[in-house]
C-alpha cells in the first residue's frame, strides 16, 4: 500500500519540506479527528458553570466557553464535523461532476450544450450564494449543508472533467479503441476517466479546503451544524455574544480553520508539482 502510494506520483508530493509539513499536518488532523473520543481531555458536553469563559490556561488549554465547556475538546471534535462534512460533500460533487462532465465531453452536441449552460450559470454565482439558496430549500442542518456544498462546487468538476475528456478524445489511442469497436461505456470508464483522474483528484483536494470554509460559514449563520454538535463555524456563531469577554472562543476555531485550509492549499500545490499537471488544470 505504501509502495503503491509512493510510486503513483502522489508520493512525490512529500519530497519537499513544505510537502512533508503540510501533508504531515493533514494526516495528523485526520488521525486526531478519527480518534477524537480518546484524545480530547474533557467531555465535549460537560458543562462546568463555575468555570465559564475562562481564559486559556491549564487544564483548559484553549479556555472555556459560555457554558464552561472545554474549547480544545470541542475544536478537536469540530475537526471531525468539518472534515467529514466537507469530504463527503466534495465526494458527491466529484462523482456527479465527473459523470456529467464525461457524458457531456463524450457525447457532445445538444446534450453537452444543455449541461454546460446550466453548469456555467451556477459557475458565475458566488459559492456562498448557491449554498445559501440550497440550505434554504433543504432546511438547516448538516445533511443539507453537505448537499449545498456539493452543488456549489459541482460546476468546477463538470467543467474540469469535460475539458479533460474533450482533450483525450483526440488522442490516437482513443481513436484506435473506437475503431476497434469498443462500446462508449468501455471507452469512457476504461480509457478516458482513468486518464482524466489526476487533475480531478487534486482539484477535489483543494475543494475540500473551500468546503471547510463554506461549512463554517453556514454554521456561523446558524444554518449548518445545530447546537450542541461541535463544529468550527457553529462554535464561533455562539461565541459572537461573548466576543468581548471570551474572544478565544472565536479566535481559536478560526485559527484551526485557517491552518487546515492553508495546509490543504500548500499540499495541493505540491501535488500539482509532483504530478506535473499545471497545464491540464488551466484548460478548463
Amino acid at each position, binding site marked *: 500500500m505504501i509502495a503503491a502510494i509512493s510510486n503513483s506520483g502522489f508520493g512525490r508530493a512529500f519530497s519537499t519540506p513544505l510537502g512533508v509539513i503540510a501533508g504531515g499536518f493533514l494526516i495528523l488532523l485526520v488521525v486526531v479527528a478519527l480518534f477524537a473520543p480518546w484524545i480530547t481531555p474533557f467531555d465535549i458536553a460537560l458543562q462546568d458553570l463555575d468555570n465559564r469563559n475562562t481564559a486559556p490556561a491549564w487544564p483548559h488549554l484553549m479556555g472555556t466557553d459560555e457554558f464552561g465547556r472545554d474549547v480544545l475538546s470541542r475544536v478537536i471534535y469540530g475537526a471531525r464535523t468539518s472534515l467529514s462534512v466537507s469530504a463527503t460533500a466534495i465526494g458527491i460533487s466529484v462523482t456527479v461532476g465527473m459523470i456529467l462532465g464525461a457524458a457531456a465531453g463524450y457525447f457532445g452536441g445538444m446534450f453537452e450544450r444543455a449541461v454546460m*449552460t446550466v453548469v456555467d*450559470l451556477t459557475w*458565475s*454565482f*458566488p459559492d*456562498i*450564494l448557491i449554498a*445559501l*439558496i440550497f440550505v*434554504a*430549500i*433543504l*432546511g438547516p442542518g448538516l445533511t443539507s449543508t453537505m448537499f449545498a456544498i456539493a452543488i456549489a462546487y459541482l460546476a468546477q468538476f463538470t467543467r474540469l472533467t469535460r475539458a479533460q475528456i474533450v482533450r483525450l478524445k483526440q488522442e490516437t489511442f482513443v481513436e484506435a479503441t473506437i475503431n476497434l469497436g469498443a462500446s462508449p461505456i468501455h471507452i469512457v470508464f476504461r480509457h478516458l476517466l482513468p486518464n482524466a483522474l489526476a487533475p480531478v483528484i487534486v482539484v477535489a483536494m483543494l475543494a475540500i*479546503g473551500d468546503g471547510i*470554509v463554506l461549512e*463554517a*460559514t453556514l454554521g*456561523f*449563520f446558524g444554518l449548518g451544524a445545530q447546537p450542541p454538535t461541535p463544529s468550527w463555524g457553529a462554535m*464561533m456563531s455562539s461565541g*459572537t455574544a461573548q*466576543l*468581548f469577554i471570551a*474572544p478565544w472562543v*472565536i*479566535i481559536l476555531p*478560526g485559527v484551526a*480553520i*485557517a491552518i487546515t*485550509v*492553508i495546509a490543504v*492549499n*500548500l499540499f495541493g500545490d505540491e501535488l500539482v508539482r509532483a504530478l506535473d499537471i499545471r497545464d491540464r488544470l488551466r484548460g478548463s
Partner: protein
Amino acid sequence: MIIKYSIQRLLMIIPVSLSISVFIFLIVHMLPGDPIDNLIRVGSSPADRIALIAKYGLDQSLFKQYIIWIGRIFTGDFGDAIVLRRPVADLIGQNLPYSLQLGALAFAFSSIVGLILGITAWAARNSWVEQVVKGFILLGSTVPGFWLALLMILLFSVTLGWFPVSGAKTWSSIVLPVLTIGFGGIALVARVTRVALLDVAREDFITLLHAKGLSRPVILFRHLLPHALLPVVTILALRIGWILGGAVTVEFVFGRPGLGSLLIRALGQRDYPVVQGCLLMLALAVMLGTLIGDITQAAMDPRIREASK
C-alpha cells in the same frame, strides 16, 4: 468592429437572463414552508387563508405566476413583500445603495492594491519580497470572511477603538467592511497578476525586447503589462458580481443594511418576492460583470474580436 461585438454580446444577455429568471423563479418556489403561515392571524378561518392565497396570486398555475411576475418586472414592479408588506422595489432601492457603496469601494481598493502587490512580487521575484506577497496571497485566499470580520472588530473596534463595531451611520463604519472584503480580493488580484506576468515574460518577443536593449521599466509597462492585464481584467469583471455576493457574510457580521442582509432575512422568513428580487439583482450584477469583462477584453485583444466574426 468593437461596437458590432458589443451588440452581439449584449443580445446574448436576453436568453441568458430569461433562463436565469426561470431558474430563480423555480428555485424560490421549491423553498419549503408557506409565506402565508407567517402572515395569517391565529384563529382565522380557512376562507381567510384562501382569500390571502388568492390575493398574492399563489393559487394560479406556476407558469401563469411566472408570466405575471416577469411581465411586472419589466415595468419596475417586483411585487409586494409578503411579510414586510412593502413593495420589493422599495426594499431593494433602500438597500442597494449600501451594497453598491461597499462593493465599489472594496472593488477599487482590492484592484489597486492587488495590482501593485502582484507587480511588486513579479518585479522582486526570487527575493524575500516575493515570499511575503505569496504568503499574503495564501492567507487572503484561505481565511473565512466572517472570521476576518470578527478579528477586525476585536482589533480595531474593541481594542483600539478606532472604528464603530457595527451599523452604517457614520462614514468610518465602512472602513472595516471594505478592508475585510478587500483582503480576499487583493489576494486574488495579486495572484492572477503575478502568474500572468510570469507567463508573458516567458514569451519569445519579451526575450527579443531584452536583447534589443530596452530598459526593464519600459518592457514592463509598455509590453508586459498590456498582455498580462487580459486575464486580470477578466477576473476583475467577474468579481463585480462576486463582491456583492461575498458581501453577504460581511454585511451580516457588521450589521450593515444591504442586499445581502435583506436576502438573508427574507430567506429566513420565506418571503418569496423579496428573495426573487434580491437574487435577480445579484444575478444581473454577475452578468453585467461578465459582459463588461468580455467587452473590455475584446477592446484590448484583437484576437477575440476576430474570432467572434
